[in-house]
């Protein structure tokens, strides 16, 4: 039987991200693959060594266009730890709020793209229409649609006023209603189930072996979500991870659907309990020493290693993004599957290549 190796990506109709996989097929079956990422490598880790540490906040925000707020937050948390800065409680709650609306918009984006991957254009449109409301909310509160730039070392740059909080509560409530209408289609439609159930199986053991993180890990039955560690205000808000045990593409979609509802709830709770007071403290001095920070992003665990040397420039900044950890599991999931299922399975890891390659 003849084998053929064909590239999947970097430009592929179902994938907005420039993921490049060289896939070997035998007839219609996938028999092997080798990832060849590197299409959008920008050398941001190196650039960060050349910039001053407050400027890096804006740099790391651009690691990823979708979860940009969380990159900034993780970086700020790291620097705050190095410099011994205690940020005010209001900033902690606002960070939760901004994180959760980022997660919400990221998951809605993914759900839309996922629907698009198996050709369900209508559902794609519905999810993106719902997401548009969240983007407007981000624009209203943060000042821009995706790159919020509202996180700074020492707290939050943009405090919310009462009117904005009211609007945000309203939008979140509306989105919840909207999702109640759309979600059943994603979860119950016959066609969706045909394309996702049992596709891209990843068992609990394999998830650990291949180092999967985030919704991938939780869909395989491991109840791990870094929000459990209670950074920012998650400890006060109370949090339990969403877990599914099937480990297929459908389970991953289900985890994300349930997480969108959870995000809305958390964001609203954060706004309700928002303490009064300052949203930022002044920062003086330079970071010295090294630290590791982990945060749960929409796609999974994000790790920052920051090493400062007492000057304005950092000695080393290392960013391990969630997709970087999820790509190896493709090596397990893809071989043996049908060619037509490749886009669905690849999308089920929620690849974000700009993140991965930095």
């Amino acid at each position, binding site marked *: 039987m003849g084998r053929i190796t064909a590239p999947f990506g970097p430009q592929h109709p179902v994938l907005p991200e420039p993921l490049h996989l060289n896939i070997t097929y035998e007839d219609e079956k996938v028999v092997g693959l080798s990832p060849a990422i590197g299409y959008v490598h920008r050398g941001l880790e190196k650039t960060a060594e050349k*910039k001053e540490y407050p*400027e890096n*906040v*804006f740099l790391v925000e*651009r690691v990823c266009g979708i979860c940009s707020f969380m990159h900034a937050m993780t970086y700020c948390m790291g620097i705050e730890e190095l410099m011994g800065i205690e940020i005010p409680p209001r900033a902690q709650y606002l960070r939760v709020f901004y994180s959760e609306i980022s997660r919400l918009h990221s998951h809605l984006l993914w759900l839309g793209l996922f629907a698009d991957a198996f050709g369900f254009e209508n559902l794609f449109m519905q999810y993106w*229409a719902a997401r548009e409301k969240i983007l407007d909310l981000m624009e209203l509160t943060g*000042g821009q649609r995706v*790159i919020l730039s509202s996180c700074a070392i020492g707290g939050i740059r943009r405090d919310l006023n009462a009117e904005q909080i009211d609007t945000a509560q309203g939008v979140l409530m509306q989105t919840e209603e909207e999702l109640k209408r759309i979600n059943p289609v994603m979860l119950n439609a016959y066609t969706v189930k045909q394309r996702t159930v049992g596709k891209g199986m990843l068992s609990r053991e394999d998830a650990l072996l291949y180092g999967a993180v985030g919704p991938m890990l939780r869909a395989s039955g491991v109840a791990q979500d870094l929000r459990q560690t209670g950074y920012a205000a998650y400890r006060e808000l109370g949090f339990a991870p969403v877990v599914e045990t099937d480990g297929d593409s459908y389970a991953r979609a289900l985890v994300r659907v349930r997480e969108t509802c959870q995000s809305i709830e958390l964001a609203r709770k954060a706004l309700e309990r928002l303490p009064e007071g300052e949203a930022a403290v002044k920062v003086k001095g330079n970071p010295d020493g090294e630290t590791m920070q982990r945060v749960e992003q929409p796609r999974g665990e994000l790790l920052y290693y920051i090493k400062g040397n007492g000057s304005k420039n950092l000695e080393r900044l290392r960013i391990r993004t969630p997709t970087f950890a999820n790509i190896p599991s493709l090596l397990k999931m893809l071989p043996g599957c049908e060619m037509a299922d490749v886009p669905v399975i690849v999308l089920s890891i929620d690849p974000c290549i700009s993140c991965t390659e930095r």
Partner: protein
Amino acid sequence: MAKMISTVMSNLTHCPKTRLYPLEERQLPPGTRGQIEFDMTKCIFCSLCAKRCPADAITVDRKGKTLVFNPFRCIICESCLEGCPKDAISLFSHWRAPVTALYEQKYQPEPGQAGD
């Protein structure tokens, strides 16, 4: 079936969710980071903004009293606004229109300005 009819009806009676862009522009909420402008009657050419700019979009010549701003490098992060001691930079909530060629904006003190 009943559900479908209600969806069809609402789609028929509601206006589209999209906008005919060049004809109809969206109003940005106040506070949106659209673009920045320098006010040369206030600027003292201290170059603090250039120092804080993460994108190196501003160059200030302190002796020659000129400030060159490259709007296409600017990422509209507001750092310069926060750093400016004279509030000479202001933010506008509308986006810069697309252009066909890149340019830099050169600012010089306004004639008749009181001086340093």
